């Protein structure tokens, strides 16, 4: 059940330049599914809207959720200043999440670009199969790859070529001659477009997680829509709600 609550920060540290890693103590951990997200609300009264941040890990027993986010503006800058014991206002758990069953026992690509990497960790923990994790970074300031190593084989691409393949995740796939039966991906739009094209070419399914500016986070305001090929059940026009019908979509269902 969705709920807005004042949770507590358990810990926070900066794991790469402007990338923060926070554990939050919250009862919402029990419902958290891979690929879902939280809305986090700044305390600053000049910034009222929630910041949607994907769930990186969830520990139902400990009642804790992990988020890894980049400072992108005033709101995330405020969050980055929170310390253990501080309160944090969150709404969750939101979104459909990744269809884990589609990956069970298959050869899987988990493709993440930059700040799109975090949601792959919880997903990787749930997949039991041949998990290949392809990660794209700007430079050698890697993050989360050590966590992901425990759940799959890691292939890295960096824009500056300082680590792994020089270029993007697609270059890493080609350089390493990787193959898969299904893809789960999260990252910048150009990467997602490349993933969609790759999946179409290889006739495999790809599930991609989309981002958009949100206001309500619960599907009421229609602020965060994605153009769909078919009219969807809710809008009856070609607009699915990323916050509710997504953020994860089958690549060939959305026009990106």
């Amino acid at each position, binding site marked *: 059940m969705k709920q*807005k609550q004042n949770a507590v920060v358990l810990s926070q540290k900066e794991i790469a330049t402007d990338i923060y890693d926070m554990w939050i103590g919250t009862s919402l951990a029990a419902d958290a599914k891979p690929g879902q997200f939280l809305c986090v609300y700044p305390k600053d009264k000049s910034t009222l809207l929630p910041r949607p941040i994907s769930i990186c890990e969830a520990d139902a027993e400990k009642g804790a959720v992990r988020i890894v986010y980049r400072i992108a503006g005033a709101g995330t800058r405020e969050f980055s200043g929170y310390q253990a014991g501080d309160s944090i206002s969150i709404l969750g758990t939101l979104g459909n999440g990744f269809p884990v069953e589609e990956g069970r026992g298959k050869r899987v690509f988990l493709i993440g670009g930059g700040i799109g990497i975090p949601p792959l960790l919880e997903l990787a923990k749930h997949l039991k199969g041949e998990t290949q994790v392809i990660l794209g970074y700007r430079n050698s300031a890697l993050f989360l790859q050590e966590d992901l190593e425990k759940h799959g084989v890691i292939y890295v691409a960096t824009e500056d070529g300082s680590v792994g393949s020089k270029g993007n995740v697609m270059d890493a796939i080609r350089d390493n001659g990787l193959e898969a039966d299904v893809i789960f991906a999260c990252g910048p739009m150009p990467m997602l477009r490349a993933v969609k094209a790759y999946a179409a070419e290889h006739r495999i399914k790809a599930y991609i997680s989309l981002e958009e*500016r949100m206001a309500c986070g619960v599907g009421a*305001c229609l602020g965060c829509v994605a153009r769909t090929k078919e009219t969807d059940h809710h*809008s009856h026009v070609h*607009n699915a709600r990323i916050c509710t019908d997504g953020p994860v979509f089958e690549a060939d269902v959305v026009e990106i």
Partner: protein
Amino acid sequence: MNTQVTLAGVKLKNPVMTASGTFGSGMEYSEFVDLNRLGAVVTKGVSNVPWPGNPTPRVAEVYGGMLNAIGLQNPGIDVFMERDIPFLKQYDSKIIVNICGKTVEDYVEVVERLGEEPAVSMLEINVSCPNVKEGAIAFGQNAEALYGITSEVKKHAKQPVMMKLSPNVTDIGEMARAAEAAGCDAISLMNTITGMKIDIHKRRFVLANKTGGMSGPAIKPIAVRMVYQAARAVKIPIVGMGGIATGEDAIEFLLAGAAAVSIGAMNFVNPYTTIEVIEGIEDYMRKYHVENVTDLIGAVE
């Protein structure tokens, strides 16, 4: 303590409703609040045919509020009648349907369809959406045009008609008088104020639509002023809205002359806002021994 208000003959258990477009048809927020507690649910604008709305980005944050340029995306009256009305009928709150259109005929078509549905207590006519290029807003920024569409709608309406006015005008009193003269039963204001946000790093408009409607606590003082001016200009009841976040905010609108209030953007910030406002009004009435909430309407000196 009596929180009941009567709006154009429609009895509301309390003066708190939802601002059109911020609450869908209640479905999404029914996970957070008991819709039975609301005075009324004002639905998202519905048109005669499905509207796709504007491209994204559709929303942007501004200091103490937000801009939106959804463009009145809606599934059209058919789906609305089949899905949304039956859902809302389950609850013991009044149903007020917001109607949008591009031509007078568009509006009238929806008005007539809703006339078949007795569960709908009132019609709110949106002639003030700043985010659709066509007719809509023109109706809301010209007194004669407003008079014209209001009287047309009234001719075909089976339910009481509430005209939702635009704040983007020189004289809100003149607009209110035009709507009243054309026979409308109530007025709601204000709709959003046209605003703009520019990303100085990309040197681009943040919204795909360039401009958007501004809402939130930042614009409350403008809304309170317009409610006060409109209330002094007409005799018909006024539903006030604009940045209401607390019961105290709602009381301010009632004192300014509003007969009821709507909660808009703050639903996004706190999904429990409607209930907190209802309880806040009750707290105020208890604290100051106000017997009937109607005693507060226009009671500022």
